[in-house]
Each structure stands twice: as C-alpha cells, then as structure tokens.
C-alpha cells in the first residue's frame, strides 16, 4: 500500500569508523569546550587563584610597618602565594559536578550512552579531559601568583622566599595538583549523585561542613581523625611546613588520591549498573 516514490534521500556515509578511546576523549573535549559554564568557571578559578595573593600581598605590604612582631610572624609568603587556591577549588568543584550532572538534567546522557553504550570510556574521558584542562590552567596560575606576590613583597626581607628552597616548588605546584584532584573528586561525586544541587551539596558537606564538625569531638579524637579527612589530607600537598596532627605531603596526597580513586570506582560501578 505504500508504493509512493521516496522523495527524501539520506546521503550515504563514505567511511565507517568504530568507537575508540581517543575518539571518546575528543568527543568529551568538544562537549567540555562547547558550554558556557566551562568558560565562566575556569575563568573564575584562574582569576581567583591570582587575585587573592595579589590583594593579600598589597595589603600586607602597606600594613607591614604597623604590624606587631606576632602578626608579622603569622605571615608566611607561601600562605600568601596560595591564598587563592582554597577559593578557586570551589569554582573547579562546581564545574566538575556540572560536567556530568547537567547531562542527566538535560537528558543528553541518553545521547551520550547511545553513542558509547559501554559507558565507562565516557567517564574516563571526562576525568582525563577535565584533569588536563585544570592542570594546564592552574600550573601557570600558581606560578604567576607566587612570583607576583614575591615581587609585590620585594622590600620585606622576612617575606622573601626562593623558589629553589626545599619544598617551595613542591608546595606551589602542589597547589595546582590539589585543585586538579578536587576537580576529579567533584566529577566523580556528580556521577554518583547525578544531580547538580545534590552533587554540589555533597561536595560542600565533605569539604566545608565535615571538618568544623570534627571540633565537637573530644580533642584526641579530632586530632586522630581530622587529618584523614579528604580536605585536610589533600591540603598537605601544598603545605610547606608539617604541623602537628597533620599528614606529610606525600601521605596526605596519597590519602586524598585514595578518596578520589574510591569515588571514581563507586561512580564507575553505578554508571554501568543504573538505568538512564
């Protein structure tokens, strides 16, 4: 009964490919760069990382003459140089959650998983692309922060520190590495929670609510437990001095890395198992 001649011709595809991981990486890169939230969040992270040390340096320089010896002793050049990291991590965490939660809220995850039905390559590609872009952005940002704050503080000998001094390069670059891991951790949380508000709230609870809550515990418990929280352990990556009741930079970094690995593992298991 349907003998009408077709009038719509779909052009044929000359070459046929197949799914490959480098192609999924490129696909996720296209997605990353083609939404506005990426540009705004990364711009904010970059700007915050540098703006805080610069402002902090100028304020310190102008008040240095009137500071008490105690106040002066409380100032450390690396704290000033990395003052923006704790703020920039917020923008990076929000974008990390958003990169996957927005796929669920808009429904584009169905298109994504129709193109890559094994699903896991999508998660690996998102993590790698995002980690790469944060690293490329944050390394120059922390270096610029360090040298800019040192330049502003050039006439205060007590606040001069050499990049080649032991631990300094590790601390400065560690600030960038910490933000990379925060982005990865947040992306994994987004994949687990699959909801933007829920994902951001979960991240905030782990990083900003849990640590002060530890102070309600007896001091000995707090001292024993707090150092193993993701936020406290992770922060040791860019801490110059090893304070009491904190992990070493290497141990702290590994503990935070283990949290990231656990979150990614849970995200991967749920990604494969759950209906979309």
């Amino acid at each position, binding site marked *: *009964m*349907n003998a*009408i001649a*077709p*009038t*719509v*011709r*779909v*052009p*044929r*595809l000359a*070459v*046929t*490919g*197949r*799914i*490959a991981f480098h*192609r*999924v990486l*490129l*696909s*996720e890169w*296209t*997605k990353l760069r*083609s*939404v*506005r*939230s990426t540009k705004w969040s990364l711009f904010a992270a970059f700007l915050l990382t540098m703006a805080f040390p610069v402002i902090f340096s100028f304020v310190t320089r102008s008040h240095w003459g009137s500071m008490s010896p105690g106040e002066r002793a409380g100032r450390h050049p690396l704290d000033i140089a990395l003052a923006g990291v704790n703020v920039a991590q917020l923008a990076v965490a929000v974008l990390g959650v958003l990169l996957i939660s*927005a*796929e669920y809220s*808009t*429904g*584009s*995850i*169905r*298109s*994504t*998983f*129709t*193109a*890559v*039905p*094994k699903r896991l390559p999508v998660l690996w590609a998102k993590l790698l692309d995002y980690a790469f872009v944060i690293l490329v952005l944050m390394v120059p940002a922390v270096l610029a922060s360090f040298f800019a704050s040192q330049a502003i503080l050039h006439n205060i000998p007590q606040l001069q520190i050499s990049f080649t001094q032991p631990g300094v390069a590790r601390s400065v670059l560690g600030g960038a590495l910490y933000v990379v891991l925060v982005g990865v951790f947040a992306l994994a949380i987004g994949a687990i929670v699959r909801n933007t508000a829920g994902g951001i709230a979960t991240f905030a609870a782990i990083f900003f609510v849990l640590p002060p809550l530890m102070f309600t515990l007896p001091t000995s418990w707090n001292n024993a437990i707090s150092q193993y929280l993701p936020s406290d352990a992770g922060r040791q990556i860019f801490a110059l001095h090893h304070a009491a009741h904190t992990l070493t930079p290497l141990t702290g970094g590994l503990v935070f890395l283990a949290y990231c690995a656990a979150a990614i593992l849970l995200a991967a298991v749920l990604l494969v*198992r759950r*209906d*979309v």
Partner: protein
Amino acid sequence: MIEARELTKDYGAKRAVDGLSFTVQPGVVTGFLGPNGSGKSTTMRLILGLDAPTHGDVTVNGRHYRDHAAPLHEVGALLEARSVHTGRSAQNHLLALAQTHGIPKGRVSELIDLVGLHEVARKRTGQFSLGMGQRLGIAQALLGDPKTVMLDEPVNGLDPEGIHWVRNLLKGLAAEGRTVFVSSHLMSEMALTADHLIVIGRGKLIADMSVDDFVARASQKVVVVRSPEPERLRAALAGEGVSFEPAERGALEVHGLTAEQVGEAAATEGIVLHELTPQQASLEEAFMNLTRDELEFATEMEEAAA
C-alpha cells in the same frame, strides 16, 4: 533487524513492559503503536541498552546493542524525551556524537542541511521549538548512516509539511533495505506510513500483523439501512450474530452483516430501501477497539485476582 524475546521491565512494583516478543524486519516500515504510557518508550530504551531488562532479551542486527563495535552505524535513534544539552549548539551536539566513531565533521553539516536546521545550527538548543528539537533528533538518528532507524514519536511537534517529509523519509529508508521502527500513539499516522504494525497495551503485545490485516481484523461489519418498512426489514435480517440499533433520522444500524447480505435479503423480500451504507470502522476506532478490549480484559483479571 530487532529481535525481542520475552522482554520485561519492572520499575519498582509497576510492570512497564510485560513479556514482549517480536521481530522487526528490514525493508519495511514497522509501526510501534500503543496508547500513551503503554511501554513504547521503555521498550526503545531497552533496545538501546539505556535500561536493563528485568527478564528477557533484545538484540539489534544479531547482537546486544552495547556489544556492537560501532553502534551508531547499527542503530540511529530518536528518543521521545529530549536528549540534548540545552546549553550546547546543534552543531556541537552532533559533532561530539560523530567524534566518538570518527565520523567526519562534513557529515554533521550534511545532516543539518538535510533536516533544514542550517540557520540555527550554532544557536543553543535550549532556544529550539519542539519541531526544531525533533528535526535535530532526526539528524542525530541518521548521523551514522545506520542499518536500523528507530524513532520515538517523530512527528510530534512537526508542521504538516514536516510530517509529510518524515513519512517520505521513512519510506525511503525502508526502500533502501534498512530496518525502520517508528512509534506513535496515532493509528491514522501509522496507516499512512507503516507497512507492518506491532501494537502494545499496558506493556503487552496485542497485535503483530500487516496494517491491512489489522484494519480487516479490527473493523466490524456495520451497515446503515433506511427503509419505509423497518419492521419487515428487521424480520428479514434477523438471525444469529445480527443485532440492530436505531440510527439518525429513522435509519437502522445493522451489526453483523455486510451491505451485500442486507441488500440481497431486502430484494428477496421485496422491501424498498432508501439508503444502504456500509460503515467502515475508522483506523482510530479499530485501534481503540483492540486496546479497549485488552484493557478491559486486564481490568477483569485484576478484579478476579483481588
């Protein structure tokens, strides 16, 4: 080719798809028909592996969808629910999908032109109308030049011109030997487009037959007849399986006989007829009759079980 065997999906206590077995053949347009909420979209998600079946199994071109090395060349799908990031342009949405399979960028522009979205290809899809969204979905389905095309309610939101275009597109795809599986809740739309029908209600298979057979099976024999001697006519026509209902302006609606049978009986008895009109049940009625029977049966079963 799509093959479903005993396909079943539960969402909590609700059974959305219930033991569906069917085969969708290449070379014809197969309509997937059922009222809203009957399980069509769920079945399509099961075919694509987006949802996992509770029982049963479904394969596309001989394999589970997720086991294909190049799934976009096997199946192109338009899903009913929106499946595009609202902050991304149509161009970038299609490009990101194409890149997973190494499909060249030129293919994206080619399809954007084919569906008539050239002017808005760089706009964020959140600003798209329903019809533009459907066109983008159709472009997405055709991106990988797939052997099987599966479209969920493709004409939703399209203007008459767009609907006509989609009909011709589907027929053209089937004529090229592809498997074309298209869902709708409108029987009239399917009758114009499909060769074969798979009808479901409440997640269960109701019919799996050609469109022509479906209409013949589902339509009832009804004839409207008008005569100055209605009583004599009734007596002449009375018999097993025959019933009467009064119709407009004194006419009589005869159920269970064809127009030929009524005319011959009247001629034999010498009864004058002023009107003799066979009533072809409309496709929509045929569909309603089938699904209503199924729903009533299901309700009775539930009441009996309660």
